[in-house]
């Protein structure tokens, strides 16, 4: 039983990281119907920025964290302007390919700049554990869970309660109509990319104590975050986090209870099953196609 709870908690913590990356997918998808395959690599880059500020320049953890988030927000805007905006509205497949190309580029460049070693950031939560009875919970994992809850709530409020969030939803439904309503669509899309890169950076920095940062971390985790986003229905912010937690728990349970090899496959098996039964994901809207 204790093993079960321990696995559950570590699964939830891992799942929250997937959820955070998935949140980035969902944000961009909600606002522009673009699927950003480079999201994991944005996370990786965010982690490296934070490492540069904290590990190499010796800044305070929180200042370094904020600096990395700001730098990555700017980077997200630049990436959107250069790679995505010229082909916005074209078949999804070309945008997917463009972002895959961007991902390749970021991975290689990060490998060139920061090398291929695993890097580690010292955080205030790196050490120490919380003991509840005989249950042992590491602070770094708890910090991930807490941060995910906070970010998810903030983003949900932002999308549903603020004017800018409403403008984002409007421009995703029909860009031309949004233009007519006086929404500065280009700026809105820019802001969305900035937010999604910032969220990715949070994921990267929070992840640093758990899995370390290396140039391929984005690819590995990004591939896990996809099932998370799809399970959650790709258009739903709480869905992304729930999907991420589901994937994380499934993965750690499969790693513990099933024979070796299932750990990496189980999330995809579950994903395919869900897609078979409910092609829109668990939280997706059911749509009918009009001619």
């Amino acid at each position, binding site marked *: 039983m204790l093993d079960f709870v321990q696995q559950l908690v570590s699964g939830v913590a891992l799942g929250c990281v997937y959820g955070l990356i998935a949140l980035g997918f969902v944000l961009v998808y909600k606002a522009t119907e673009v699927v950003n395959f480079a999201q994991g690599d944005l996370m990786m880059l965010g982690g490296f920025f934070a490492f540069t500020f904290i590990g190499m320049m010796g800044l305070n953890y929180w200042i370094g964290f904020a600096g990395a988030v700001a730098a990555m927000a700017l980077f997200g805007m630049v990436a959107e302007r250069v790679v995505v905006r*010229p082909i916005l509205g074209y078949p999804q497949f070309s945008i*997917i390919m463009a972002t895959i190309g961007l991902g390749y580029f970021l991975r290689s460049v990060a490998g060139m700049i920061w090398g291929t070693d695993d890097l580690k950031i010292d955080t205030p939560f790196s050490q120490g554990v919380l003991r509840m009875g005989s249950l042992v919970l590491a602070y770094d994992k708890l910090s991930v869970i807490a941060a995910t809850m906070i970010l998810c709530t903030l983003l949900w409020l932002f999308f549903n309660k603020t004017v800018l969030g409403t403008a984002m939803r409007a421009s995703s439904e029909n860009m031309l109509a949004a233009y007519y309503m006086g929404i500065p669509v280009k700026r809105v899309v820019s802001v969305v990319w900035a937010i999604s890169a910032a969220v990715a950076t949070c994921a990267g920095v929070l992840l640093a104590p758990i899995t370390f940062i290396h140039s391929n971390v984005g690819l590995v985790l990004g591939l896990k975050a996809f099932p998370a986003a*799809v399970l959650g229905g790709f258009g739903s912010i709480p869905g992304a986090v729930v999907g991420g937690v589901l994937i994380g728990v499934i993965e750690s349970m499969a790693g513990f209870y099933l024979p070796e090899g299932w750990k990496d496959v189980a999330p995809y098996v579950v994903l395919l099953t869900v897609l078979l039964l409910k092609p829109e994901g668990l939280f997706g809207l059911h749509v009918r196609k009009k001619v």
Partner: protein
Amino acid sequence: MRFLFKTDYEDDIKLFPHSGYVVSYGILLALLLVAPYALSSYLMSQLVFVCIYATVGVALLILTGFTGQASLGHAAFLAIGAYTAAYLQEYNVPFPVYFLAAGLLTGIIGAMVGFPALRLTGIYLVIATISFALIVEEILARWESVTHGNEGMRVKALSLLGVTVPRDSPTFYYLCLAVLVLTIVGTLNLLRSPTGRAFVAIRDSETAARSMGVNVALYKVKSFAISAAITGLAGVLFAHKLSFISPEMFTLQLSIEFIIVILIGGTFSLHGAVLGAIFIVMIDPFLTYLKDDMPGIIAGIAAAFGAGPATAGSIQSSVAAFASLNGLKGAIYGIIIVLFVLFEPLGLYGRWLKIKLFFQLFPLYKRATFKRQKIYVKSERNR
């Protein structure tokens, strides 16, 4: 400029619209047939890879280019074909049998993937095919009694009609070339048949195709099966060419490479698969060549502009240091993909058509002919 006068439907779907096609493709085929006597063994080896990649490219074009179903899982079909060949070879099954068996098996598995894919579109389909490929990769690594797991499998040289065909012999090249040519001709015929028309109709509008009486589900599954089967056949040749296969050769990376083949070549014509395959296979030796020779050339240019020998030497060494940076190749790959998507969406074959049109219309060519129209995003959720 040539004007083709068509009087009936048969004219419209002819394989060779006019005699120029016969002449130019005849010359191309003749050149390819004498290639083993003219090219170095390294280039021949690359040419075999071009044939294999182009075969996969054609398969992917049937599915992605003509039926409109994206797939990032074709490495899995290739792997299934390759492993079928390697496994059956252990039991001394003759080549023609396991070649066809590999095609049949991948075709069946392709159809099985096609069924669940019926309900999925766009991004969901991409994710589903990625998941499928990852699961297959893991199965290959774990099913040790058949695949020998991560140790991989040796593939013996293939023997055809009692003759052993080594993987770098001209005969093997002719075999790959024959498979490619047959695939292309078969696909061209498929595309002008009702089945091919149905594929294109589904790509253009599923709803419209359905209302015209096309059985969308049936044709999608057919498209998946055909595409997978051709990829499986290519997988057999791939296994023989490499003579050793292991699960980590058939990763997502390879699937992405196949997509890049058709993306760079052009997704609207079979020419694209071949051009893209040439590009993808030749870019590696080309980059290596640049890496080896570029520093010297740049230093030479610097010297020509009056830089002293010391400066030129330091330029040469710094350029060489840059060129040997780890991962430069990946960065160049990434840039190439992005540039093609942004500036050459019709691919290399599209560029060739533009150049051809420019000379055909010579003084009258308008740059706006191929200009992209402004498109506004409209949600797929309520389209």
